[in-house]
């Protein structure tokens, strides 16, 4: 028959000091709530601002071009980046990566077939996959393939939707845009021409262009174009901090123009993440304080019940069994406190998603698994610290 703890419970004098116990529970609850909310908000920001993929984390991606002035207007060589320019930029300490936007060197015509009677002269560009924020797995091309996947700037789609009604063309949602099959005709010298099929496989917020796989541009420039040397009108730069003064003065000195709009997003994200990291650390501190307060309460309780506990040990109760059971008393309260905090965090997340973010698909109304994992960890942590504490105090009484 297992020894029952029930008759022993009344030997622990808890009644006299309830307020400090409830304060520590409250403190624990607030701390846990802060911590969990911060983690969830941190994850929300990651998901909202496209920080999902780790290779983009912590970097700003910006495009630069040479400033076209009245003096350089007619001279193509001076307005394009050559290989030496690229090498020099890549060698700068504040730049972690550079990739040229290589454009087509021949005439490209794009038409949407019979469904949307629309055709236009166009350009295509290529960029290293690492620099594109949205790269689907089917974004590749092989020689002989007549289908070309396209990563399309979401800004361009917006522009199209602005003028489409005026031309009697249908406006397109992001979802339908990717279903429209387009025909891309490349015209080379000596009346060489070839038509490919293409479709939008992803929209990009970062890259203001029509991006196709790099090997297609390389192949097509050789086949339809006249020059094969790399000259790009725009470069994409990966940098730790687009607002680094060294970086900005370098651009100024070189007379390069930077697309500043795109860097703002990165700054906002950094600031928000900083705020929530700070809040999370504060929450953790509150949790630690609450656990400390609770341990004082435990010490007081054991000091008050010292005679009874000593007599129990004298009668032959195992100190280990007693420690386990004394600390077990607080399991339900601990779980309750964390579950309430978890519930409130879930409510916060739902309200944030529903009212502040209008159910944006990037976010979920449900908590991220790491928030649940953290709360489990917190329960475990508080139980272990309690158990060790009680055990230490009880062994002193032996």
């Amino acid at each position, binding site marked *: *028959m297992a020894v029952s703890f029930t008759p022993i419970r009344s030997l622990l004098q808890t009644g006299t000091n309830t307020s400090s116990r409830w304060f520590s529970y409250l403190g624990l609850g607030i701390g846990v709530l802060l911590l969990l909310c911060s983690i969830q908000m941190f994850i929300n920001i990651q998901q909202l601002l496209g920080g999902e993929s780790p290779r983009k984390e912590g970097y700003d991606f910006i495009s630069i071009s040479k400033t076209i002035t009245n003096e350089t207007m007619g001279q193509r060589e001076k307005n394009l980046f050559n290989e030496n320019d690229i090498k020099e930029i890549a060698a700068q300490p504040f730049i972690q990566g550079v990739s040229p936007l290589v454009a087509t060197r021949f005439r490209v015509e794009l038409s949407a077939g019979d469904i949307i009677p629309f055709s236009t002269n166009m350009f295509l560009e290529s960029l290293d996959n690492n620099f594109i924020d949205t790269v689907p797995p089917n974004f590749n091309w092989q020689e002989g393939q007549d289908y070309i996947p396209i990563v399309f700037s979401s800004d361009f789609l917006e522009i199209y939707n602005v003028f489409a009604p005026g031309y009697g063309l249908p406006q397109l949602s992001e979802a339908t845009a990717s279903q429209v099959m387009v025909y891309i005709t490349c015209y080379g010298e000596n009346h060489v021409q070839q038509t490919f099929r293409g479709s939008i496989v992803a929209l990009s917020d970062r890259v203001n262009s029509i991006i196709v796989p790099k090997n297609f541009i390389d192949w097509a420039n050789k086949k339809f174009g006249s020059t094969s040397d790399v000259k790009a009108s725009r470069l994409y730069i990966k940098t730790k901090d687009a607002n680094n003064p060294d970086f900005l003065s370098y651009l100024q000195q070189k007379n390069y123009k930077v697309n500043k709009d795109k860097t703002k997003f990165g700054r906002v994200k950094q600031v928000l993440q900083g705020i929530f990291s700070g809040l999370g650390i504060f929450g953790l501190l509150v949790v630690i304080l609450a656990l400390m307060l609770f341990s004082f309460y435990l010490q007081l309780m054991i000091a008050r019940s010292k005679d009874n506990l000593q007599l129990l040990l*004298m009668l*032959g109760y195992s100190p280990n069994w007693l420690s386990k059971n004394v600390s077990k008393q607080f399991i339900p309260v601990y779980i309750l406190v964390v579950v309430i905090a978890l519930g409130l965090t879930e409510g916060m997340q739902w309200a944030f998603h529903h009212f502040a973010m209008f159910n944006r698909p990037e976010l979920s109304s449900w908590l991220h698994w790491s928030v649940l994992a953290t709360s489990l960890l917190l329960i475990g942590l508080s139980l272990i610290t309690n158990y060790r504490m009680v055990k230490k105090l009880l062994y002193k009484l*032996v």
Partner: protein
Amino acid sequence: MQLQLQQLLPVYFDESQRNASEVWRRDLIFSKGEYVKIVAPSGSGKSSLMHFLYGLRNEYSGNIVYNNQDIRNYSAEDFASFRKDHVSIVFQDLRLFPEQTVFENIELKRQLNPFHAAEKIREMAERLGIGNKLSSKSRICSYGEQQRVAIIRALMQPYDFLLLDEPFSHLDDVNSQNAMQLMLEESKLRNAAIIFADLERIDYFPYTRLFHL
């Protein structure tokens, strides 16, 4: 099962006390089934001896060996099972939980390693004349009643040695004999030894060995 005292002496005793004693600084072996009477005037270290044997204090030189193991090497857990399974005690100062009822006091010991069913508590209490006190808090019981509670509590567990430290100091002769009878019966059931320390000889304890402390 043997309890051995090897050259035992409290560290706070001086030479004169040591020489007069038949227990201190001697080699003694107590075995199961023996009834040992230790006659000890005040200040001769009676309670010290009982506390040493029960493992509550260790300010002694020499060794106490139980079942070939020196109890000085026992861990806190070892002592817990020593007191739960092998050695029971009636303290001179009783040591009850004042805020618990008589029944709860006894049950707290019984549930730890039940030798008897819970009904036995009432039966023994009736027999010792405290049947009507079972639901009273122990602190409002008289010393004599508390002493009987402590005696019943000691009989709830299995044991090889029963240590009695002036168990009848607050009881009249009739009640003492009654209680002694119960303890003898219970010890016979377990084939256990009784080590009985008191100020003077008591006629109704049928000792097999006698020592002067």
